[in-house]
């Protein structure tokens, strides 16, 4: 049976893992390949790097980090942030990534998703959707709007419509982040997740709002997510990946348990 994936996300800037709140007050947390290898050993089913480095010339550093990671952590690696062309995607894959995640660039040019999927296959193309509730937090009827640039810019696009369009363009997976929940620890927006998962056939990765293992269970059981991504709860070692998987397994969710990592 296909396992539900647990995916730690590492924010990378200038070749280092950084921590901060919404891209400010960043602190250096270490070498990405070293952390990726540690997470892989703890049972991470994939690793995601989010390149938050807007500095020109930062790409070379990122590619070098991707290559060092591929040589050490034998689990799949997704890279998001800053890829705007087929050529740039090719470079990231050649360095050792398996998938590339598109966010703002896909919203600006859905054709980019189509071109990359045609060249590298849909399985390598992830579209990241940052969604914000349109009205009050308890009124899902109003729907969700797609936002870009880390939530700073609204697009007017309906998140569910964009999800369908992105899949039609060739996205093989959707990484759905609730901007309302991100960084709050209030749990994943399972209503948003369910609305998108019911509309597309591709896997949906839940993101934004986790504070504990029960949130992962809810993302799958209530939200219909195929994979669950989190950043800070793992980095701050509040919960290990093995802890989270043990709770998921106890709730009857199929997860891959790695020997020697028992909670």
């Amino acid at each position, binding site marked *: *049976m*296909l*396992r*539900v*994936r647990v995916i730690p996300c590492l924010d990378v800037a200038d070749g280092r893992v950084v921590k901060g709140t919404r891209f400010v007050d960043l602190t250096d947390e270490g070498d990405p390949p070293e952390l990726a290898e540690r997470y*892989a050993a703890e049972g991470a*089913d994939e690793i995601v790097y989010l390149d938050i480095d807007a500095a020109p010339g930062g790409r070379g550093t990122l590619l070098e980090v991707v*290559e060092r990671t*591929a*040589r050490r952590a*034998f*689990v*799949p690696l997704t890279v998001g942030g800053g890829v705007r062309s087929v050529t740039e995607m090719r470079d990231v*894959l*050649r*360095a*050792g*990534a*398996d998938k590339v995640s598109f966010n703002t660039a896909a919203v600006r040019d859905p054709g980019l998703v189509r071109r990359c999927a045609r*060249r*590298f*296959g*849909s*399985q*390598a193309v992830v579209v990241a959707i940052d969604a914000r509730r349109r009205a009050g937090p308890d009124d899902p009827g109003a729907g969700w709007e797609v936002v870009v640039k880390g939530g700073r810019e609204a697009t007017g696009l309906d998140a569910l419509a964009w999800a369908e369009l992105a899949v039609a363009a060739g996205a*093989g*997976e959707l990484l759905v982040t609730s901007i309302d929940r991100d960084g709050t620890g209030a749990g994943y927006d399972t209503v948003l997740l369910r609305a998108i998962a019911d509309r597309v*056939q*591709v*896997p949906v990765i839940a993101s934004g709002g986790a504070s504990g293992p029960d949130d992962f269970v809810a993302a799958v059981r209530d939200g219909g997510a*195929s*994979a669950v991504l989190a950043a800070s709860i793992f980095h701050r070692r509040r919960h290990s990946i093995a802890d989270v998987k043990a709770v998921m397994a106890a709730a009857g969710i199929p997860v*891959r348990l*790695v020997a020697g990592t028992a909670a």
Partner: protein
Amino acid sequence: MTRIAVVDYGAGNLVSIEQALAAAGAEIVLVRRAEALADADAMVVPGVGAAAPAMARLRRRGLEAPILAWIAAGRPFLGICLGLQLLFDGSDEDDAVTLGVLPGRTVRLADAPRLPHIGWNQVERRRAHPLFAGIEDDADFYFVHSYAAAPGPGTDDVILAETAHGGRFVSAIARGSLAGVQFHPERSGSDGLRLLANFVGLARAAGSPPGLTRAPALAR
């Protein structure tokens, strides 16, 4: 040292496969032209994506005939993901005509709850094989695909393992020194590394029959 030719035809990430084979003690030769196959003990064809562009690139680089000759000679071969699918007659994905070493077609996964099939899933073995030596039955491996090979009539002996995602599909094959896996051992943690090390061991054994010492390869 056992030399493994990894066919590089622009179909995906080779860093991890290279590194995983090197960790198993093999020397890696990236093959973009047929001449580079000289001195190799075994061949690996990796790859993700669609069959038609992959076949076009193999043909453009003059690699189709050498791959067929290699397999016909019974030399050690491992196809990974698309590299397994290409062994069959053709693909429903884009109607590509593929290598035709084995009868059958590559078909879309039937009754799948979601596609692509992405993630770790159990590989259920039908029989023992040295490729899986030291790996538990039903062990999890990493998959990322929407199509899989459906071996044709008379190929029951070829099927080595199956996996369920809605319907069941063939996740590993082997016949003689020909083998293929639908999953990605280079992305499947320690069990994946074990499988690749087993393949290197098989290549080593095939390259050095007992009692024979190989002459050193000339003029690299």
